[in-house]
């Protein structure tokens, strides 16, 4: 069987504890993954400075070209993995088999990750707002306008506690190597595949192995990464967000509560935007933080909800290899049923209508997994609890709310797509602090422009802009 070791600064380490990752439908073991312990991580992190030193010894331009090559390898090559190798097709199959995501979604996520690597120069240009990367590498330099600027790196490595259920999020940490910081990753227990394949592709493209550590393991491993890395990111639910809120060392990625807001000037033509709404709710199986979980309008909300239900309600759960599969399975026992029961409580509230009820049962249970077919609810007011709920499947509430109450009622919104041409309202939306990514016009919430920062700029998280004065006489030699 494929055995995937812990990787300690590039060196494989076989643990006495292993965990089998299994096929979500059959229970067939796919791989045996070595498990690290928290103490091992803490001890290794004392050598984190070495990773940055190694990367700083490589010119940024070289790193960039190697990462571009890595992007190609990630998408096309047979790469070393543990005690074996992995082709791109095997990667897709393995990822689908252990996460419950349909293979076509795995392929799409694979493309996203390789896109980021192959376009790393453009993406870094956007992330740094056009800064010469040599200035980041050196720590200071003179901008084109003749001003000395300095960026102080806050950590030698980025730590990341990665999820099992959303392989698209890896695009967030991939650019770190180009910024000359090492990577300390805890792969998701069901999805070790992406982290290992990215690291393997990087190494095959000439990035030194000693800048990567991969620690599959339990909660103590995640805790050790978050407490031991001076900058780390974690993916989790609402509880995780609250736990790390206000911690400058940790960037938390959780539910997005992304939304579509229909302005009064456009709502009467709502049918024109139905495709965009469907895509925002349904793409990637509704699993992403950038999927819309609600649609807000002041009128026609019952009709919008009925039309969305008519489009999404009939969608069936299909097997992972079916090219038309659009829903991901819940692979943890009882999860689908628990979510469904939670929703039933919300649907019983006065003013809430279950619009997909006429399209058959939503909960589909199999022996080892379950699916939830798309659900659309209508809420007569923002006060209904369901108006601000988000779940890991295609689910959305159409909420009736006057336009002038919308911004204050929607709560935190990772992606807000506002369909309006009303200049006054656009101005208010632009000023709103509860909307992170703002789209003006009928842009689906899931369509991210890669040249825009996502949930906080990575370079601002890792580098601190600071004063750096150099005497005129010294500047010429600097």
């Amino acid at each position, binding site marked *: 069987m494929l055995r995937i070791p812990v990787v300690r600064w590039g060196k494989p380490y076989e643990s*006495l504890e292993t965990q089998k990752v299994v096929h979500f439908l059959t229970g067939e073991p796919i791989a045996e993954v070595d498990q690290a312990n928290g103490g*091992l991580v803490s001890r290794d992190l004392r050598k984190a400075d070495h990773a940055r030193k190694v990367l700083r010894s490589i010119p940024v331009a070289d790193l960039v070209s190697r990462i571009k090559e890595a992007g190609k390898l990630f998408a096309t090559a047979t790469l070393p993995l543990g005690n074996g190798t992995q082709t791109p097709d095997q990667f897709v199959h393995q990822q689908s088999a252990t996460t419950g995501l349909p293979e076509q979604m795995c392929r799409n996520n694979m493309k996203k990750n390789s896109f980021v690597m192959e376009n790393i120069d453009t993406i870094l240009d956007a992330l740094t707002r056009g800064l010469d990367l040599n200035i980041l590498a050196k720590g200071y330099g003179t901008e084109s306008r003749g001003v000395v600027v300095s960026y102080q790196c806050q950590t030698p490595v980025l730590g990341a506690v990665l999820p099992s259920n959303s392989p698209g999020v890896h695009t967030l940490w991939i650019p770190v190597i180009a910024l000359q910081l090492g990577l300390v990753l805890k792969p998701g227990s069901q999805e070790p595949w992406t982290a290992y394949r990215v690291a393997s592709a990087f190494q095959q493209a000439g990035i030194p192995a000693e800048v990567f550590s991969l620690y599959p393991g339990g909660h103590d491993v995640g805790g050790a990464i978050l407490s031991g890395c001076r900058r780390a990111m974690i993916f989790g639910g609402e509880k995780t967000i609250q736990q790390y809120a206000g911690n400058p060392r940790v960037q938390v990625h959780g539910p997005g509560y992304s939304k579509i807001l229909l302005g009064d000037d456009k709502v009467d033509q709502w049918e024109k935007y139905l495709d965009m709404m469907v895509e925002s709710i349904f793409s990637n199986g509704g699993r992403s933080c950038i999927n819309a979980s609600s649609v807000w309008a002041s009128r026609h909300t019952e009709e919008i909800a009925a039309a969305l239900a008519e489009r999404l309600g009939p969608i069936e759960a299909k097997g992972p290899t079916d090219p038309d599969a659009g829903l991901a399975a819940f692979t943890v026992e009882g999860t689908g049923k628990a979510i469904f029961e939670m929703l039933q409580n919300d649907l019983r509230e006065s003013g809430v209508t279950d619009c997909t009820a006429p399209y058959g049962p939503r909960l589909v249970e199999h022996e080892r997994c379950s699916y939830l077919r798309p659900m659309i609810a209508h809420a007569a007011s923002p006060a209904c609890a369901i108006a601000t709920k988000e779940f890991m499947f295609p689910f959305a509430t159409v909420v009736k709310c006057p336009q002038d109450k919308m911004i204050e009622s929607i709560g935190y919104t990772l992606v807000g797509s506002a369909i309006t041409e009303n200049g006054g309202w656009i101005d208010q939306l632009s000023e709103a602090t509860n909307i992170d990514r703002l789209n003006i016009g009928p842009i689906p919430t899931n369509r991210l422009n890669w040249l825009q920062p996502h949930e906080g700029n990575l370079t601002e998280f890792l580098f601190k802009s600071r004063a750096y004065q150099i005497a005129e006489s010294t500047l010429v030699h600097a």
Partner: protein
Amino acid sequence: MSTVSTELETAIAAARKQLDEHTYETVQWHFHPSTGSPFWLAKAKELGFDPLTEIRTYDDLKKFPAFEDDWLRGGPIERWRPKGLDGKPTFVFETGGTTGIPKSRMVVEDHRTDYELFSATLPDQYFPKGSNWLMLGPSGPRRLRLSVEHLCQFRGGICFCIDLDPRWVIKLIKKGWMEHLEEYKKHCIEQALTILSANHNIKCMFATPKLLEGLCNALEERGQSFADTGITGIFSGGTEFTPQWTRFCIEEFFGGPPEVSGIYMTPTYGNTLMGLACSKPVTAAEGYKISYYAPQPRAVTEVVDFDDTNRVVGYGETGRVKLTTLTKEFFVPGFLERDEGERERPFETYPWDGVSGVRPFHRLASSTTVGVY
């Protein structure tokens, strides 16, 4: 298929006979009106059988309902003291108590007896008689703190202790105050470093896995190693004491097995109710497997079926850990621990069943806070 030598078979039979006799005597003591505790004398009236006449062997204990540790909450504590021990100086040790009333166990001398028996299992080469100890574990109304001190004194040494309030640690975890948790851990480690730097000839220690790891890390951050402390014998315990953790500690913090590094670490398993189960020596050759054996006949560990808790599982099979305590001070006829593990075979040193791979019981694991200090 493994074979058992005649000598071992004889030893197993003798141990079983001793356990049956000890069970009979213990039950007679706890249920006789002249010696029994108010709690068990009152409980006897609800049992539907007479323990004095119907409990003759260890297996007869299955007639008792499962012991509920909630019975230990609240007082008066005297209800647990057998009349036969009236007038003896009595300790109370507590467990739990982060919120609400803790569980209390009265003790006269059990903790001393248990640790004196444990002392005989410690190799003098690494735990030199007469040397001083450091107790890097919980303080307060805990059995462990006084027991370790007694162990040290019994071996002719003086024990240095730190202040550590595990109830506060659990509160920090439940509140999610992880930075405070980290600082509190540092506070404990600093106390240990201060004691170790004060020239007290400390050669042995008790430490929980987390605190031992914290101490080793703190030493390495100062450019030192654990060997620099001069400590050669460590005893530790808890479900976090896994084979992988043991290997990590031995290979990376100690610099190798005892014969190379001169540092010996032994795991133990126990609690306030039972006492202390010892481990078979842990070696790389056996994959750092940790197997615990209770101090029979004073205490017994069994590995039982998750649903039928009177059925012991087969050797090598997984089940829930069931504890029985049979001393003159305390009678616990089968308490289902919050742990699970695999049933281990008897061997020459301990001719009775053991348990390995101890870890939190999977059906309760998510609600159990482990390794808090």
